């Protein structure tokens, strides 16, 4: 973003030399997704912690199918030459751990990986779900991965990310869309996070026939709060991935909404989502497009006040827009055939809902409430082969953050492992991945898109 003068400075030729001399922290330029971009920009290193690893085979098959150069030896030269640096990804299958002693294998693999990983590289640790283990030593080993990953993320440089996937027992063949997301530059600002890929009882999910360049082709999406900011970018991103997009915002934002809708070749629906008729109006409108596959609950407001100064009206307006409206719409989706089998609900939580934020008791409450809503709704959607997930953005560069006082804004940007704010598209890419039909095994998850922000980490 052009108003991040510090990032512009330390990335300029002159600024780089000054920063190097006086030890200013660097701000990496992140590689972001563009259509047609290869999954990885170079070679991948693929390690296994134990002989019982369940997932390495799937990863290897995906990478080799895509023509990626894969090596098992973390020291192996890449690129057909003798180069021992510059790898695009280091992936370790850490499933099958029997005790903390097995962690040494992972250290042995990741130590060279951390030295070799290139700019915007991807380090991915894949483990078993800790809660599925009953033996203390096993569960301890599984849980240890989280501390390893979160710490390694704080050491990664040049825009490389380190993340942890928990793959449920039996879900090892359901990880493709998730692997593609975490390895590609779509996950540029997802850093130091864990995500669980689960099993789907009674549903034989398949990614056969998926067009990975247009993973949302033929699907109809609703995006609330689409007039501007993150919502407008979500609409654009869903469209890029092939969806038809219904753009929703309050009537007073109708002119910006019309621009978004026309930009994405979708339709505009001016609607106050807190109105009693909002769920039925939304479903009625969706019938114009033959029904609904994706609902993105993006609309949100802030009415920040210290709790000591808060009043009932402000409080209620935040809870109504950010939480009650979503609950009401979800209730309607659950009982309506307009919301198709295999549907996707994606909602926007916030770092403030996880870590809390001064002046944001109402906002924080609403965004934490969203997480509770996701937890409880996920099992209700299983019968429809549908899912619900949440993205929790950290500091994202928008018109709202541009209007912050300099001190607050700079703190928001720099107090993360990426030392910068994310872009709206980083949130949008995560939402678009949750929205894929191929992401059928990702349900009830909350993923932070925050460059490993230090708040509540």
């Amino acid at each position, binding site marked *: 973003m052009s108003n991040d003068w510090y990032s512009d400075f330390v990335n300029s030729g002159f600024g780089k030399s000054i920063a190097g001399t006086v030890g200013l922290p660097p701000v990496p330029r992140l590689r972001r997704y563009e259509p047609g971009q290869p999954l990885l920009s170079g070679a991948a290193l693929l390690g296994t912690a134990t002989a019982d690893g369940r997932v390495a085979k799937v990863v290897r098959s995906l990478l080799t199918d895509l023509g990626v150069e894969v090596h098992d030896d973390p020291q192996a030269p890449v690129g057909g030459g003798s180069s021992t640096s510059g790898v695009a990804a280091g992936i370790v299958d850490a499933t099958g751990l029997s005790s903390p002693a097995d962690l040494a294998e992972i250290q042995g693999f990741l130590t060279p990986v951390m030295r070799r990983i290139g700019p915007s590289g991807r380090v991915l640790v894949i483990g078993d779900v800790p809660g599925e283990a009953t033996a203390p030593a096993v569960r301890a080993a599984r849980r240890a991965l989280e501390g390893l990953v979160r710490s390694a993320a704080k050491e990664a440089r040049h825009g490389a990310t380190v993340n942890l996937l928990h793959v449920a027992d039996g879900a090892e063949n359901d990880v493709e869309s998730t692997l593609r997301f975490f390895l590609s530059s779509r996950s540029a600002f997802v850093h130091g996070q864990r995500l669980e890929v689960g099993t789907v009882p009674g549903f034989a999910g398949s990614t056969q026939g998926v067009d990975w360049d247009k993973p949302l082709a033929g699907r109809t999406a609703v995006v609330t709060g689409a007039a501007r900011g993150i919502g407008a970018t979500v609409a654009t991103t869903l469209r890029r991935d092939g969806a038809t997009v219904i*753009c929703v915002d309050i009537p007073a934002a109708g002119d910006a909404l019309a*621009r978004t809708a026309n930009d994405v*070749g979708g*339709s505009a629906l001016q609607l*106050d989502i807190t109105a009693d008729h909002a769920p039925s109006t939304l479903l009625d409108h969706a019938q114009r497009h033959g029904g609904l596959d994706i609902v993105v609950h993006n609309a949100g407001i802030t009415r920040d006040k210290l709790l000591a100064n808060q009043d009932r009206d402000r409080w209620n307006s935040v809870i109504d827009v950010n939480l009650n409206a979503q609950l009401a719409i979800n209730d309607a989706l659950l009982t309506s055939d307009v919301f198709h089998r295999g549907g996707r609900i994606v909602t926007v939580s916030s770092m403030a809902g996880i870590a809390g934020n001064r002046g944001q008791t109402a906002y924080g409450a609403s965004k934490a409430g969203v997480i509770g809503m996701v937890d409880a709704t996920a099992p209700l959607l299983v019968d429809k082969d549908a899912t619900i997930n949440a993205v929790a953005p950290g500091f994202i560069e928008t018109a709202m953050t541009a209007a912050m006082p300099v001190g607050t804004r700079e703190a928001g940007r720099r107090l993360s492992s990426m030392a910068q704010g994310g872009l709206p598209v980083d949130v949008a890419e995560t939402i678009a991945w949750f929205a894929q039909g191929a992401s059928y095994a990702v349900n009830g998850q909350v993923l932070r898109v925050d460059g490993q922000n230090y708040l509540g980490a």
Partner: protein
Amino acid sequence: MPSASSALPRRAAIVGANRIPFARSNGAYARASNQDMLTAALDGLVARFGLAGERLGEVASGAVLKHSRDFNLTREAVLGSRLSAATPTYDLQQACGTSLQTTLQVANKIALGQIESGVASGVDTTSDAPIEVNDDLRRVLLAANRATSTAGVLKALGGLRPGQVVPEIPANREPRTGMAMGEHAAQTAAAWGISRTAQDEITVASHRNLAAAYERGFFDDLLTPFLGVTRDDNLRADSTLEGLAKLRPVFKPAGYSDTEATMTAANSTPLTDGAATVLLASDEWAAERHLPVLAHFVDAETAAVDYVHGDEGLLMAPTYAVPRLLERNGLTLQDFDFYEFHEAFASTILATFAAWEDPIFCKERLGLDEPLGSFDRSKLNVAGSSLATGHPFAATGARIVPTLAKLLHEKSAQEGSDTVRGLISICAAGGQGVVAILEV
């Protein structure tokens, strides 16, 4: 009630609409051109119905106050909009009747099967109005332009005189009488004995009905904000009879005192800027796209009166058009669920109603054995009309058509009744008037 008959092979459907909020002259839209406003209104319509890149049968629009460079106003607006550039257009102008007339044109082509979809619209600005050089200066400049030698040019320019620099600003006057429209209306009001109180009651009702319609979200799918305006800025939701009673009259018939005159700035429409569009289509076109059909366009009639040499009021043409339309469709004035009468002046619609209740007028002027009679006034302009919204001349028809269509659709959905029907009436400068019937 019986369904209105029509000789046309099929009826055009009113699918939906979009307009920008209307703004008082020289206010929020002072720097917006007709083309800006029409383009914005079209783009809002395109967004609402997901028509980006689509080729429609046609877009018909027009403006009363038009720059000479805007000879192809509608085409230019469409080229600047998100519609396909392969959508043909034309401009039409019939004063305040313009966009009811464009609705009629588009509806007729759909009814005849010549097109499957079209947009009827209108736009006007009294803020960004064309200013012309006066006729004397224009003749001098044209003579200079025709001259073939430098000497000839200088000779022609030698005819320049200081008085010629006074520009001609368009005025709301009838060319043949030199009278302002309000003065004409005041004469008619006096002739029919229309009281100040009755006019103010119409005015208060218009504002209150419009405010209530906004409050219940009626316009959420009929309007898109423009330049920061989210509601018609002429709307005075707190308008009261007591407040209006304090205003001084602005239009007086010759020989009338201030206390006898009845027409004020409140019970006359203000000069206004704005644009409005309506999407019409065949039922099949709408069904293919799963788009709603709010109502159907049944029939329309245009009338004109001789207000120059004859003995008729300038704005009384609808009084003649409606009985002709009713007769053709086998209906009476009482056969409607809603009445949408353009409130050019409160007195205008009251004079029209009075004329229809007058046996002598109905017999001598309209050739009717019985007067048309009265109707239930609670069905009149129930979502407000021009006194509250304002009146960008050419845009008013395209404001009223979807308002009525949506009212009919709501009533039909609520009551499940067989036929729900509404009447539209718009008076226009030049002694003309356009009236129409919509039905669900």
